[in-house]
């Protein structure tokens, strides 16, 4: 299928756009900041929902994330994956919130659940078929662990590099490769 390389092209263009926006932002272009916000806010929100956070909590965390992003300009030099960096910032913030909500003494990063809620947006397909398909995908994903779900979500849906996924999960890149291939195998085995 030729749409595989086309897909890679899209991802590349997307990454390049991110880098260009970051570059403009660092040069002092304030418009770039609002473009960065609008480009990534949906994905960040969706990621936070996946991690099981409430809408309002999430909004606060996103607010803090972008504020911090803006004022710590100096730390942004040399960043190659803007999207990953924002995800990391949001996740750190969410960890802090999680810790303060669960007053236990959590030293290590907590294991957060990871939920994936599929929805079919195609208008041409009948409602019952839509529901059937959504259930199908849900059961497919249910057999995965939270960590596996988060990993495949970041890798396939958010299209991140293995290195970035590894960082977000506090794992090494080879370990993430293994984790994902196990997840795929698990789904495949279940289907037979």
């Amino acid at each position, binding site marked *: 299928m030729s749409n*595989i390389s086309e897909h890679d092209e899209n991802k590349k263009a997307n990454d390049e756009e991110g880098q260009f926006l970051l570059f403009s932002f660092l040069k002092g272009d304030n418009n770039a900041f609002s473009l960065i916000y609008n480009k990534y806010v949906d994905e960040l929100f969706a*990621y936070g929902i996946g991690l099981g956070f409430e809408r309002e909590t999430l909004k606060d965390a996103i607010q803090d994330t972008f504020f911090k992003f803006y004022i710590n300009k100096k730390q942004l030099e040399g960043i190659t994956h803007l999207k990953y960096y924002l995800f990391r910032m949001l996740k750190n913030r969410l960890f802090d919130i999680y810790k303060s909500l669960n007053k236990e003494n959590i030293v290590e990063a907590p294991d957060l659940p990871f939920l994936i809620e599929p929805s079919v947006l*195609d208008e041409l397909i009948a409602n019952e078929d839509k529901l059937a398909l959504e259930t199908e995908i849900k059961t497919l994903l249910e057999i995965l662990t939270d960590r596996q779900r988060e990993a495949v979500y970041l890798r396939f849906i958010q299209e991140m590099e293995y290195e970035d996924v590894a960082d977000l999960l506090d794992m090494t890149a080879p370990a993430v490769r293994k984790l994902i291939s196990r997840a795929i195998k698990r789904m495949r085995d279940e289907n037979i």
Partner: protein
Amino acid sequence: MLSNQWLQNKSFIQWRLFPTQEDNLYWEQFIKVNPHLTDEIEEAISILKSIKLNTQKLSPEEKRNLFDLIQKDIENRNKRRRFRIYLTVSAVACAALLLVLLQPFFSGKNEVPHENLLVVADSSTVNQKDIQLVLANNRTITFEEDADIKYDKKGEITANAGVEQIKVSKTEEEETALNTLIVPKGKRSSLTLADGSKVWVNSGSTLKFPTTFKIDRREIWVDGEIYIEVEKNKAKPFYVNTSHMTINVVGTQFNVTAYDEDTDYSVVLVEGCVDVSINKEKARLKPNQMLSVSMDKISVQQIDVNNYISWKEGYLQFASEPLSNILKRLSRYYDTPIDYDENIAQLKCNGKLVLFDNLEDVMKTIYNTIPIKYSQKADRILVQKK
């Protein structure tokens, strides 16, 4: 809808959602072997493309509001920040220091003490009223209007003067070879050095500097008046040399007035700490001090820095400044000779003087506030008691 059967095929769905190399190969092969299924598979693929995982979104309104909140956070912080800067400035206002050096050894105004370092432009082809930038390779760039020049780390030069913009890429010469910026009377320029330090160069000044600095030290040479904000870098001390003193700094802001033609020298420290070496004597200048040297005698006093550095913002500020000094500065700034009667030379002036585009407007401000009159004769201005 034949594609339905594909939408119930878990392996197929899994491939579309999480395409691995292995699955790609498998399905490409499958389609090749079953060309009659191509259409329905394409249809199923297009439906599956519309599947979004975790689609919960913020409404456009929520998004806007959230962004407003972020901007408010940033504004509040900037307010705090401005306040901080203001405090710094007011703390700095008392933290200034002036070093006046008597310079009895030198006469002749166009000679430069470091002849070996100065690149002399071919004066026959250059309009002496233009700003000149003499590059390390002896090429001369001239600007008719006040210029803002920037050297970057790679040695590339960008210069803006009026509407003009000039770019020069790195020259072949040795990188640490010296460039010379000559700012004639009546002109001003600003210059960003390769390390990011920013220099404002006042009228009638010559500045020499390398395209990129040496590994272990940063050094520039000045004849005239500059205000400089030095980028902090402890590993590479910064030296400002004038004909009779060397100022050693590690990240600071200060003003140097050291016209070879003048008998007075001064260093005004705005921030930080500098060591000044004059011949064999060394003095460390600290906040809240002004150091002046007269007839080899060094004295210390406090001053308001704004009185000395305001020229870079386009105005002059004075506190009990003799009129003669002000007229001397104006004469240099506007490149117009000013004569005055001895009986008004010591009139003390206070306040701010905006440096308008033409000298006449400035003179008007002066004679409106102090009892003088002035007349103009053939490009010379004469100031007398009213």
